[in-house]
């Protein structure tokens, strides 16, 4: 159903146009005087000196989460690469020396120049291995090669840069610690034995 918006009824004074022009000018002059008298009220973000405050949910550069031993949580399942609409993720898998985990990435490259920062890779990851919460949203380079991030660059982050009180931002919990995954398994098609089996060990 269409919404009917009544047209504003102009008074005679407004229809004359002359008074309204000076009202507009007065508003402009008011802002000009205020900017001169109180420069701190100018709503300019002085960018190179003042960095923007981005919300925590802002999708920025990726990072690869690490296990307790420092290796990548990625199991090279290609879910993110498949989900990526821009095809900016390139994974080459290799056999993992860990007995419980089949694969690990030999290379994990993200071309940030192709990336559209949609977050579908983060949604797709079953291991919570890739995240986009680094807060680095300003990517400017003078060559295309500089935008390609390899595995080392994606894993080169410090826990000190993330809030200490938010443990989830420091590490991606697997096994028993990952309550969300366990709850999903318990409510789903898995038997209690499966859940207990998974809960014992890190499968990601």
């Amino acid at each position, binding site marked *: 159903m269409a919404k009917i918006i009544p047209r504003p009824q102009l008074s005679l004074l407004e229809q004359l146009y002359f008074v309204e022009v000076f009202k507009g000018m007065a508003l402009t002059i008011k802002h000009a005087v205020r900017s001169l008298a109180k420069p701190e009220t*100018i*709503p*300019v*973000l*002085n*960018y*190179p000196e003042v*960095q*923007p405050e981005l919300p925590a949910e802002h999708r920025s550069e990726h990072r690869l989460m690490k296990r307790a031993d420092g290796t990548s949580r990625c199991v090279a399942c290609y879910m993110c690469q498949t989900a990526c*609409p*821009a*095809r900016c993720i390139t994974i080459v898998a290799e056999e993992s020396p860990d007995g419980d985990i089949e694969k690990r990435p030999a290379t994990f490259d993200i*071309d*940030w*120049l*192709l*990336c*559209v*920062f*949609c977050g579908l890779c983060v949604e797709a990851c079953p291991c919570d291995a890739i995240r986009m919460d680094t807060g680095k*949203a*300003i*990517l*400017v*380079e*003078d*060559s*295309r090669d500089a*935008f390609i991030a390899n595995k080392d660059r994606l894993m080169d982050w410090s826990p000190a840069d993330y809030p200490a009180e938010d443990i989830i931002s420091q590490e991606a919990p697997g096994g028993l610690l990952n309550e969300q995954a366990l709850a999903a398994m318990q409510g789903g098609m898995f038997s209690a034995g499966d859940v207990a089996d998974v809960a014992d060990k890190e499968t990601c």
Partner: protein
Amino acid sequence: MSDETTAPASIPEELSQQFTNEGGFLATKLDTVINWGRSNSLWPFPFGTACCAIEFMGTVSSVFDLSRFGAELVRFSPRQADLLLVAGTITYKQAPILKQIYDQMCEPKWVVAIGACASSGGFYDCYCTVPGIDHIIPVDVYVAGCPPRPEAILESLVQIQNKIGDEKVSTTHVEASS
């Protein structure tokens, strides 16, 4: 033949250095002054074809304020501009227009590819989209993002200014890119 081209032995080495572009006092000071002028009065030509151009509007407006960098005078004539901001998807049908506009701009000129589409084609991996405008024209600075934040566009302008500061007046862009 070779004796005629080399400088006579009577001119000292340090004196002959001053007449070359490399170490000459006058030439470097002139470079500094001209580069200072060029970098702080860029006249952008926004070649906006898609949503990144909307982000460029935000960059020009009061919160981010492109005029703090002396580049607020957006010209819609390539003859009057020296900074080409390519913001948006460039299709193969649009490519000759972009090339013509780049050719119409006077030297010296700089190019910024804003956003994923202009820089690399983005997710348009198809028959009609140019996979990055560097297939057509030389690009100085790439900005990633879909679209990039206004701060990223400001950052690209800062990088262009730094790049101008390193340039020599005697070298043209045609020589540099060829």
